[in-house]
């Protein structure tokens, strides 16, 4: 490609862009590591650019805007506030429009640059090696090649115009390679690189995103092959758009309020999905061609997976060294147990007294940093200025044999600076005289960010700040350590109820806690408005009162609930509503959750228990009738009966291990035990467990999971809307990754490396077993089942049966 001639001084423009980056960094500096890396990469690139007109400069211009979109999109994902989302969306659209706008090139009366490359065939060989780009007949001398609707970045167009005025032929890289129209909404979430930029190094910040390994295995290539790469990226961009549209269609489907609407939305979604799948197929076919020298796409992906798991920086990975997935699973389990323990202590310490609960929660929120740094390091003097992370590292190092007193503040302070980008201004263990105030502020922010805020799930609080007086009031209460507000914040994270509604649930939560439930159960409970309102409202408060005397059996209030309310037979026949253990209680809760999908029809309307009971009974009658009809019209679906096989939830550490608190949360390791009952598929499913094992262990790339699941479900004769819904739900975890939703997580758990949308999903070898034995995925799927407004309660039960069965099979291994 010919370089454009050097232009006038563009230092000012570069400075502006750098300022823009700084703004982004300041605004979203606490974002995910991935984004931070992208920002740093971009900043590095920006610093190295001397001429914005160079291809690198043009890429920089574009990527800075794309990154901005992605950061805004990150923010949008984080917030549930509609106003804030609308504002962010508007900003995104504005930038997107800027990126997509096809500025007219005024030179010599040329026509506006139009997309001329909208076709699926590779570009002709005379296209100046720009990969699928055409010389636009409307603008001689200027090459453009974009996805439909895309155009030139105005700045690039302006530069092109200037260069054209000087008489030079202009070659402009495509800016629409990844579908800038919707690139922010796609699944991949990375900065795109244009088709003209291949090849790129296999590792490093310049690696383009993609669904295949196509971008990683090539050196300089002939024009024809380069054109093929261009086509790959073009299809890739279109696919990103299609994924985004399919996601939107699915969201619309979920939000549909009536049956007619659902039918329409479902049809729209299916169309979008079909389009997406067709594009994926196209892209894979091209990838196969590109990767033919490497044994085809599948082989290349496996090779990549192997390479990704190779030891880092020359270190050897011993066979018994844990993978990142295994480490993350262990971390997740420890976190879960810690939270469960926290919940237990809250219940025990409070002794039924709200006062002490409040005190205790206040302590939990406010003490960790000072306490741990002071205690674990034995250095009280600088405890206040320590970050939570530094404290934790100090604790960890201490436990590993580093003498506490030798861990200076300098050491502690700079570790988090190196590992988390959190700077603590210490010099040789002494704070500079002028620094204390700044240090305290930084430490406070860091503690909040890294410690209790993250731990107790307060991120939502930030969103609430946009909600007016309620949020302000809540935040004020938070600041003074009000336990009510703390719990509000915590449970608001998992509840979709309006704030005032969430606040009503708090006494019930307390009641359940004191009634013997665990935090895990509470999390489950709080997802279900019906459960909160139907059970906790009445019995939780009683439990709370009784809890003061320390007498509450976990199953008691459930039993009373059962006796007091008319419940359908299938609920009773489950045998779960018995006095007894927490596990039974959990089972009961699981059943109750099935009603959640119907909650909006009655929750919030009642004024007293009588009205509530009447409404519930009426609703249950309607549901039973609906269930009966479902049975009649869907004989191929499994009958609605509670799952026959109990959940496998045992984890016993070796006897020589130190005592480990029993965790009610789902353990990461669930192994078969001799006493485990045989796995029985739900009645009506025509499949044997061996068959399930076979199918579920069938390894392939991550994108084959949905079709693999479809085959599996087909073999089980499980079809229809519920089956489609399940496939879609699992599908979402493959295309979007739950990690995207949670900031990080599932994808990271599923792979042997950190979640990176540029590389995940395609180059990861997974199988259904990975999915159905993964706690995070199962929790996600369960939540989706719970929260679905598409499924009827009968369908929810069916899906739950299937998922539980698959989970059992997967967890039992081969």
């Amino acid at each position: 490609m010919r370089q454009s001639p050097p232009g006038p001084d563009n230092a000012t423009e570069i400075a502006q862009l750098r300022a823009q980056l700084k703004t982004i960094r300041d605004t979203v500096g606490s974002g995910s590591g991935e984004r931070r890396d992208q920002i740093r990469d971009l900043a590095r690139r920006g610093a190295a650019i001397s001429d914005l007109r160079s291809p690198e400069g043009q890429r920089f211009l574009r990527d800075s805007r794309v990154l901005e979109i992605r950061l805004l999109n990150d923010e949008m994902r984080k917030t549930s506030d509609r106003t804030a989302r609308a504002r962010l969306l508007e900003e995104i659209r504005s930038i997107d429009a800027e990126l997509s706008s096809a500025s007219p090139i005024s030179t010599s009366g040329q026509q506006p640059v139009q997309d001329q490359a909208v076709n699926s065939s590779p570009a002709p060989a005379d296209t100046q090696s720009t990969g699928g780009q055409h010389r636009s007949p409307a603008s001689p001398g200027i090459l453009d090649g974009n996805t439909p609707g895309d155009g030139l970045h105005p700045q690039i167009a302006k530069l092109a115009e200037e260069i054209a005025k000087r008489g030079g032929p202009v070659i402009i890289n495509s800016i629409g390679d990844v579908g800038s129209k919707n690139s922010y909404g796609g699944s991949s979430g990375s900065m795109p690189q244009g088709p003209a930029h291949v090849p790129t190094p296999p590792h490093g910040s310049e690696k383009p995103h993609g669904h295949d390994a196509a971008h990683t295995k090539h050196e300089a290539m002939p024009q024809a092959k380069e054109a093929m790469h261009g086509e790959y990226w073009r299809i890739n961009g279109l696919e990103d758009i299609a994924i985004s549209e399919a996601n939107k269609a699915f969201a619309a489907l979920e939000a549909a309020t009536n049956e007619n609407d659902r039918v329409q939305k479902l049809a729209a979604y299916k169309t979008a999905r079909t389009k997406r799948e067709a594009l994926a197929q196209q892209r894979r076919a091209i990838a196969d061609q590109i990767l033919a020298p490497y044994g085809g796409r599948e082989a290349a992906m496996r090779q990549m997976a192997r390479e990704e798991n190779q030891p880092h920086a020359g270190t050897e990975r011993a066979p018994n060294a844990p993978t990142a997935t295994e480490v993350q699973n262990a971390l997740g389990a420890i976190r879960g147990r810690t939270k469960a323990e926290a919940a237990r202590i809250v219940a025990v310490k409070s002794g039924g007294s709200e006062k002490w609960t409040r005190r205790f929660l206040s302590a939990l929120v406010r003490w960790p940093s000072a306490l741990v740094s002071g205690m674990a390091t034995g250095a009280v003097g600088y405890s206040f200025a320590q970050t939570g992370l530094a404290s934790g590292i100090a604790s960890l190092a201490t436990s590993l044999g580093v003498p506490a007193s030798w861990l200076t503040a300098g050491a502690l302070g700079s570790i988090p600076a190196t590992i988390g980008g959190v700077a603590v201004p210490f010099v040789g263990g002494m704070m500079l005289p002028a620094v204390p105030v700044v240090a305290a502020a930084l430490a406070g922010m860091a503690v909040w960010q890294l410690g209790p805020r993250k731990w107790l799930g307060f991120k939502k609080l930030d969103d609430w700040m946009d909600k007016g007086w309620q949020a302000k009031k809540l935040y004020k209460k938070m600041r003074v350590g009000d336990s009510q507000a703390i719990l509000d914040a915590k449970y608001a994270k998992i509840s979709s109820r309006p704030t005032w509604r969430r606040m009503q649930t708090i006494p019930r939560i307390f009641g359940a806690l004191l009634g013997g439930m665990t935090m895990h159960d509470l999390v489950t409970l709080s997802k279900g408005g019906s459960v909160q309102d139907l059970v906790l409202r009445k019995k939780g408060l009683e439990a709370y009162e009784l809890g003061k005397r320390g007498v509450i059996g976990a199953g008691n209030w459930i039993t009373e609930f059962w006796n007091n309310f008319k419940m359908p037979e299938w609920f009773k026949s489950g045998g779960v509503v018995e006095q007894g253990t927490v596990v039974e209680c959990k089972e009961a809760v699981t059943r109750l959750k099935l009603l959640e999908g119907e909650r909006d029809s009655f929750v919030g309307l009642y004024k007293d228990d009588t009205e509530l009971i009447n409404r519930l009974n009426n609703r249950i009658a309607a549901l039973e009738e609906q269930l009966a009809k479902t049975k009649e019209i869907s004989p191929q679906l499994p009958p609605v009966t509670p799952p026959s096989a109990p959940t496998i939830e045992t984890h016993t550490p070796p006897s020589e291990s130190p005592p480990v608190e029993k965790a009610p949360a789902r353990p990461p390791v669930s192994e078969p035990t001799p006493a485990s009952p045989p796995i029985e598929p739900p009645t009506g499913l025509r499949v044997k467990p061996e068959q399930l094992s076979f199918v579920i262990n069938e390894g392939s790339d991550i994108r084959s999971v949905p079709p693999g699941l479809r085959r599996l479900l087909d073999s089980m004769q499980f079809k229809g809307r519920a089956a489609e819904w399940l496939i879609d739900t699992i599908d979402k975890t493959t295309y979007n990754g739950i990690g995207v939703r949670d900031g990080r997580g599932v994808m990271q758990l599923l792979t042997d490396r950190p979640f990176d949308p540029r590389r995940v999903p395609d180059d990861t070898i997974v199988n259904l077993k990975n999915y159905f034995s993964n706690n995070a995925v199962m929790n996600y799927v369960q939540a989706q089942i719970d929260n679905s407004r598409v499924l009827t309660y009968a369908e929810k039960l069916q899906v739950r049966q299937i998922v539980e069965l698959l989970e059992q099979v997967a967890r039992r291994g081969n």
Partner: protein
Amino acid sequence: MNPNITNRVVSPEEVKKMIVEALNIGHLPVTDQDSIIGELAGTLMERATLALLKEVPEDEFDKIDALVDAGKDAEMVEAIRKVVPNAQQIMEDAIRSGVEEYKILVNEQVKARLEGAAAR
């Protein structure tokens, strides 16, 4: 105790290296290592705090709370030490047990993987 550690200030790099070795994650990318250390450290901190708070008598909460409110962290720590003399030991034990628990969990998974591979 690490024999390489003598009576001197431990550099962050050394501390990190020790942790990485102890957790057996040296083969993972640096970003992974950092993330794992950060997560584990945070969780251990919480465990340690919980372990300590379990020992703090409830009738001390008002006093300690007041010190927290006043920003008198050093005094607060001293107050806790007074009522829980072995506070440091409790916290260190909690952290050690957390590390051990982590190792057990990881090793179980590694073992399961190796056994699975052998079976195949």
